[in-house]
């Protein structure tokens, strides 16, 4: 697979596994059946055997949609990470502290305007910004162990 194809389409998704699916090999089939490559950014199986995973998927756009449909047919809930993370624009003071820990540069300081740019499409929903934002401007709407992180 050439790297050009890999760059064709790229998206970070959040998968929720109901208890009956978390023990089955499903994600690996994205590569086997749909020629997609994936990078596991975060994965967890909870005590009640439900699970969650943050995946960065890349490949052809057509294959991406087929792959996502396959995941859904297998019983997984698939959501775009970008829709799970929010910044309260009124609250943010653009200090820049979050950029110290953001691993994907979804939060990055614009060196000209000195404002913190937020690109949810690059976000892996790790939650570090939420943990350190001094004015609590970030919200990560992801459930873990039945609790909001």
């Amino acid at each position, binding site marked *: 697979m050439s790297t050009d194809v890999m760059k064709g389409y790229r998206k970070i998704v959040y998968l929720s596994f109901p208890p009956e699916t978390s023990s089955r090999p499903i994600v690996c089939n994205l590569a086997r059946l749909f020629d997609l490559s994936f990078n596991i950014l975060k994965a967890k199986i909870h005590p009640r055997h439900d699970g969650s995973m943050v995946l960065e998927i890349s490949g052809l756009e057509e294959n991406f949609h087929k792959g996502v449909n396959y995941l859904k047919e297998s019983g997984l809930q698939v959501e775009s990470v970008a829709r799970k993370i929010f910044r309260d624009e009124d609250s943010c*003071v*653009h*200090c*820049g*502290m979050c*950029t*110290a*820990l953001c691993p994907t540069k979804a939060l990055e*300081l614009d*060196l000209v*305007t*000195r*404002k913190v740019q937020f690109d949810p499409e690059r976000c892996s929903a790790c939650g570090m910004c939420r*943990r*350190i934002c*001094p*004015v*609590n401007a970030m919200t990560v709407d992801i459930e873990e162990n039945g609790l909001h992180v």
Partner: protein
Amino acid sequence: MSGYSVNKTISEINERIQKGKAVVLNAEEMVKVVREQGKVKAAQEVDVVTTGTFSPMCSSGILFNIGQEPPVMKVSELYLNNVPAYSGFAAVDAYLGATEPATDDPLNKVYPGRFSYGGGHVIEDLLRGKRVHISAKAYGTDCYPRRTLEKDVFLSDLPDAWLLNPRNCYQNYNCAVNMSSRTIYTYMGPLKPNCRNANFATAGQLSPLLNDPYFRTIGLGTRIFLGGAVGWVIGAGTQHNPRPQRNDRGVPTVGAGTLMLKGPLKKMSPRYVRGVSITGYGCSLSVGVGIPIPILNEEIAWFAGVSDEDIDMPIKDYGYDYPNGLPRILGHATLAQLKSGKIKVGDMSTVSVPITSYTMSLEIADTLKSWIQDGSFTISTPQEPIEST
């Protein structure tokens, strides 16, 4: 004779302000004017330079009075939304410090602690017009018989409320790195191990005390922008260092001068007074301060023309050196380098991260500029100088 080729007085400048004729620049604009036209021309042309900063300033708090509800009371213990305030004053006076956590805060027991609510947040809540619960206890005296008081108040219910900050506006500060092998959570923000980020807290060329490094114009009684209202410098702050090391341009190369500030809380805006939670460290208050510098002569113009390239910040290790009180400085980085997003620490290239909002600092300098331009804010004459050599 003063020996300067430009000699202006504060009253001349105020006359021009009142006539709407004063030339006012923010400190960023002044850099260019001094660089291109020279200090003498700049001093002739420019009357006032406005500075600004917006950053967590832990040594802040409010001095207030809660009013009596007869039978009267001499409070000995006081809580605002469960955050303790100091009440070892007369009757119903108290002081609430910005870094005081709520009594039931888990602190760092689950590390790193969140410190989601403390003194700084109470101050912001009051400014946002929110209801704040007061709980007070007293031992009771013949003249002050009341033992307990529980009531909800708004800021407008408090007979007096002053923002009174013992130490603000640090003139230069450390750039923090972490040479240890684990992530640490400091008042300078999170620091990744092995020097993988360098955090700095200053508005640089906009910063009040870097534009007047020898306190030639700033002293007790200087009228300023404080939290969106008009406040005053009431002297040197705690830990003020009047004799720091300086670079060729007179800019201190270590943390140096500080200011004590006071202003009317009821006239302030929550946009410029924000409660903050610094993970693993504690609660604090981000305070917006803007100080006008009257350009009385070419030397003051030269100092106010300071640029990010002229400011050297000391790089310190917060992994071992700082907590153990070791004075070692790993090197210096100019603010221009720090603002580029990358600096060198020894041989290592490290990502530099600001924790002072430059955009808010600029907004404050520009707001103060507009107050002066529309004639509503004039320059005060300091009554006592602040020592600095």
